[in-house]
């Protein structure tokens, strides 16, 4: 038997609720997680874009980076990321990358500088579930002695995403409605102090809410009781982020991928570019100047057949020019969509390529990302 041993899978604080809601559970990054509920991936996806979807993302790593003050923590972060954290305002969130010495991406993550001056010297980090252990070692090896990485223990993390997310949150937590996208605060929901971020990974407006594990199920039920909200599984989470053109670790990005290849050069701070003092700066600055040899692009297949991860991309002569890193059906796009890497000569919008699906080349085009326009509340 090669079936995954469910005994060894970890459970989030919402595991029992997933079972009660009829979640179809699958192993994901070492956790037993719902891939979908009885609603089904298609409707879960569309509901999130039309109203609001609630996701359990408690498997992700919640961390605090702690130092004497915010400036010290910001400086420490800059040793292993390309972001300008010294200019990050109070209560602001920034997406960034952990970079190794050759400019490869060790992980992508969110960082929040607390809104609260009393929390000076305490940045909140959220990292990928599958990279937690690697990240902890990687970060600790690069921290000065006066800055430490601490796990946020016994906390759940849920995401409420979609155009009705603000309306729903306003009923339970008025301060949440006042946040702009990529801002955060700490506020009570039904008497429980929660860390509330206006952020997400679906392309929609929404929130990510860190809740003490002991109250997580009650707060989640409170939000699920709202008529606009449905529970959404990992299946729709993946199709939503693919339509939004967002990279997923282990698919679009990994330790062999640079931010320039991944079309994530915007994460490199202007000051950092001038200082050229981030890991892999030599390679990255060279790629910025002369262009990378391959680039992440959006791909629109001509017909109806989806092209899955691992599908070879070829040119008109049948020569291999790249590979699909995420691909499937976009419920809101109404057809097959994909992302992948192609040689730079084929990376411009409108470039004609072919996808080798089940041994047959099928016509496709390189298209701009995202497939579905982002609707963040700026």
């Amino acid at each position, binding site marked *: 038997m090669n079936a995954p041993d469910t005994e060894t899978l970890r459970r989030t604080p919402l595991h029992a609720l997933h079972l009660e809601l009829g979640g179809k559970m699958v192993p994901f990054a070492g956790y037993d997680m719902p891939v979908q509920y009885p609603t089904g*991936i298609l409707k879960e996806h569309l509901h999130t874009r039309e109203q609001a979807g609630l996701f359990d993302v408690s498997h992700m790593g919640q961390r605090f980076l702690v130092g004497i003050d915010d400036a010290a923590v910001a400086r420490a972060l800059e040793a292993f990321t390309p972001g300008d954290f010294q200019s990050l305002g109070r209560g602001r969130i920034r997406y960034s990358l952990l970079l190794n010495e050759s400019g490869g991406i060790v992980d992508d993550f969110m960082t929040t500088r607390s809104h609260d001056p009393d929390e000076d010297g305490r940045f909140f980090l959220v990292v990928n579930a599958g990279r937690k252990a690697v990240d902890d070692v990687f970060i600790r090896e690069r921290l000065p002695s006066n800055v430490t990485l601490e796990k946020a223990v016994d906390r759940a993390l849920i995401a409420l995403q979609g155009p009705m997310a603000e309306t729903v949150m306003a009923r339970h937590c008025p301060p949440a409605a006042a946040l702009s996208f990529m801002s955060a605060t700490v506020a009570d929901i039904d008497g429980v102090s929660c860390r509330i971020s206006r952020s997400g990974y679906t392309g929609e407006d929404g929130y990510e809410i860190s809740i003490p594990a002991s109250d997580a199920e009650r707060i989640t039920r409170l939000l699920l009781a709202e008529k606009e909200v449905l529970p959404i599984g990992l299946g729709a989470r993946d199709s939503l982020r693919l339509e939004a053109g967002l990279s997923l670790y282990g698919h679009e990005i990994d330790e062999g991928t640079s931010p320039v290849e991944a079309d994530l050069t915007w994460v490199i701070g202007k000051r950092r570019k001038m200082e050229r003092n981030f890991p892999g700066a030599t390679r990255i600055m060279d790629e910025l100047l002369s262009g990378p040899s391959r680039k992440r692009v959006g791909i629109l297949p001509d017909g109806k057949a*989806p092209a899955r991860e691992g599908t070879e991309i070829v040119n008109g002569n049948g020569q291999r020019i790249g590979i699909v890193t995420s691909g499937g059906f976009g419920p809101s796009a109404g057809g097959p969509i994909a992302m992948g890497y192609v040689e730079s000569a084929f990376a411009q919008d409108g470039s004609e390529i072919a996808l080798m699906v089940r041994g047959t080349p099928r016509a496709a085009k390189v298209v701009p990302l995202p497939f579905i326009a982002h609707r963040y509340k700026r």
Partner: protein
Amino acid sequence: MSEIRFTDQHEWVRVENGVGTVGITKYAADSLGDVVYVELPSAGKKLNPGGEAAVVESVKAASEVYSPVAGEVIEANQVIADEPAQVNADPEGEGWFFRLRVSDMGALSKLMTNDQYKEFLKGL
């Protein structure tokens, strides 16, 4: 007089006057989830028992559909090509995949009857 038989890969075949209609079972359709694309065989294609005949794709993944019996394809169901959701809506009726002229009627008896398939599902 028609009879319906099932495979352990969750295909069904209903045979009438030497012509078999093939689809996937309700169990298979439910397990796959929302079907978003099907690839069907062309008329004239010769299929072997257990050979790849069609592809069915859900939002998450692609799966093969195997022919339960040997034969030559007569017709593919254009309805599910245009509207793949029909596979979920009526998998053992309007959501059929293709029809073939069965070349080995004797092989049918090796497939599961309705009752046997029900028992087989209980063991999964």
